[in-house]
């Protein structure tokens, strides 16, 4: 049960006898209905297994998909929280690049520096964005758009305008965070799981999480409830920066270098994953489990497209875009029908 029961509790009609078992099933079914990304994900996985057999449905492929999606997942946990609060963050792709570049740059001073520096830098930028949004009341779209430009510019500057790609020195252990595996799955995936669990815990079981939903539902109502809206927003964008830096650090660790051109468009992918997962862009509704399904779905689709192999990269773009439209259309139809039924939306 999460803190804000009102918008998320499914309506369970009372049934005579056998209520315990029936309501548990209903909970599951209602969840699946509200988060269509999950059944769609299941569908795609089954389709992929049937079509491609072992090359898709194998532990090795799943493990590599998990690691490939881990960076997007880390970012999307933060993006979920920001969007639930009614905001948006377009700067995460650039923050990822900045995080990677700073990691590689700072690795000359040792691995601890290589880990802390990107987190600090990106969190500071996130903090600045949060202040501009919360205190100066500027639209998040614009502030984070500027952040996108600024972070990318900074990443370029550290990389000498793209002329230098800093490499992490051989002996530094920070690379193991990106390259080692545990139980056959790369560490970045495990870190992503940790972030997801932490995020879910914060969003669903803390006062802060409650405040995030409240702010997204209605800022005025939240203020009246005693929520410190300004602090919540600043915290959210700072967290977003932190997670962007973390993901960037992991990317650098994995490739042992800090390429300044990575992450372009990642924010849009993240927003897509969050929306596919059932979180409403208007705020106040949604959650991280849906986002996880959304990220995995995007990852599976990409993997399936790769499996087809003969498709040129242009058609891959077309297929990705078409899938996105299809899934979002279906999700929109389902979600609106569900919300209308529970009285949330006119």
């Amino acid at each position, binding site marked *: 049960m999460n803190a804000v029961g009102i918008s998320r509790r499914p309506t369970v009609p009372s049934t005579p006898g056998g209520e315990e078992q029936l309501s548990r099933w209903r909970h599951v079914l209602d969840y699946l209905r509200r988060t269509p990304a999950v059944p769609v994900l299941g569908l795609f996985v089954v389709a992929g297994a049937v079509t491609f057999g072992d090359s898709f449905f194998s532990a090795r492929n799943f493990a590599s998909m998990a690691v490939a999606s881990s960076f997007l997942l880390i970012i999307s946990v933060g993006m979920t929280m920001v969007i639930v609060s009614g905001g948006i963050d377009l700067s995460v792709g650039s923050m990822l690049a900045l995080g990677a570049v700073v990691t590689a740059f700072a690795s000359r001073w040792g691995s601890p520096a290589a880990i802390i520096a990107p987190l600090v830098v990106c969190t500071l930028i996130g903090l600045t964005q949060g202040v501009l949004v919360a205190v100066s009341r500027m639209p998040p779209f614009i502030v984070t758009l500027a952040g996108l430009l*600024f972070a990318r510019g*900074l990443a370029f500057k550290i990389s000498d305008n793209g002329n230098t790609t800093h490499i992490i020195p051989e002996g530094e252990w920070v690379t193991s965070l990106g390259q080692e595996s545990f139980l056959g799955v790369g560490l970045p995936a495990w870190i992503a799981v940790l972030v997801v669990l932490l995020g879910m815990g914060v969003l669903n079981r803390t006062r802060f999480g409650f405040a995030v939903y409240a702010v997204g539902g209605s800022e005025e109502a939240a203020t009246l409830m005693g929520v410190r809206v300004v602090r919540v927003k600043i915290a959210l964008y700072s967290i977003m920066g932190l997670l962007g830096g973390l993901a960037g650090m992991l990317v650098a660790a994995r490739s042992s270098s800090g390429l300044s051109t990575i992450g372009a468009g990642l924010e849009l992918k993240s927003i897509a994953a969050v929306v596919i997962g059932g979180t409403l862009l208007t705020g106040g509704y949604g959650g991280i489990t849906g986002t996880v399904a959304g990220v995995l779905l995007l990852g599976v689709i990409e993997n399936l497209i790769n499996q087809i192999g003969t498709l040129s990269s242009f058609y891959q773009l*077309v297929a990705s875009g078409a899938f996105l439209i299809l899934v979002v259309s279906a999700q929109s139809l389902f979600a609106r029908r569900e919300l209308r039924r529970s009285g949330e939306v006119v």
Partner: protein
Amino acid sequence: MTAATTTTGPLPSSAVRSFVRGNGVYIALGALVLFNLVATPHFATFRNLQLQLVQVSPVVIVALGMAIVIGTEGIDLSVGAVMALAASMVAIFIDQGPWIAILMALFAGVVAGFLNGSLIAFLKIQPIIATLGLFVAGRGVALAFTNGRLVELFDPTLSAIGQQRLWGIPLPALIAGTLALASSVVMKRTQFGRNVVAIGGNPRGALGAGLPVRRVLLIVYIICAALAAVAGVLVTARSAAADPSFVGLLIELSAITAVVVGGTPLSGGKVRILGTVAGAFLMQLVFSTLIRHDLSDSDARMVQAAIIVAAVYLQRDRNST
């Protein structure tokens, strides 16, 4: 004399502030022009003016469509991809003659706009997500049409469109100017323009008042994509080549920036066409000023970011979220 205004000198500070807020973009543009007149060699030449006009025209045209879309509290991320699509259509149909090619490019724009508009108006998908689909897929389609290659075009009519001048003014700039004028008239003097602003300002209210919301939204996205197609044709004409990999790349960023810096709020309800044009000029001038003064790419981005924040900060409404 109201008690609210505190006069502390010849100019009440609130009056100054509200003047700056409403006209920030013109002030900034004026300041930048002055700076360039003083500090940049060869700035005040006719040739430079023509160059700037040609370079800014595509952005202006795209920004016009974007401004109208933003007026409905929407957004269109696919404009760059539509430009690429238009370029690829020109490349494919150029053998049938320049006018057929241009027509097909515009048609592609209309189709793209219809797709976006349908997703948003009928399926009620959020504009940022709906146009994201085409943003991803559109360029792929354009690349597929031309097999990923840059296609050189040797058509005299096309080159003429891109490079001819009328009374010294480059044709692309004239086209942009005409479109800007037309947009201004449509937004201010027609029922359609009023509908756009009404929908953006109060979507539920507009619906309740009986406005044809879905039709207006559909038309708005068609207009935006059609204008993007025009910009794509112009860029193709000017460079005498269709390059779907790079045409329109990142132009959605420039267009949105121009619109917002020019005073049109993202929350909809108000569309400032002249401000949008000024915003486009401002961003273009910022970029070329930075280049002329040897600022590196990285510094240029950071300065651009600062300017965007400053411009929007100056124009913010204290009560908006």
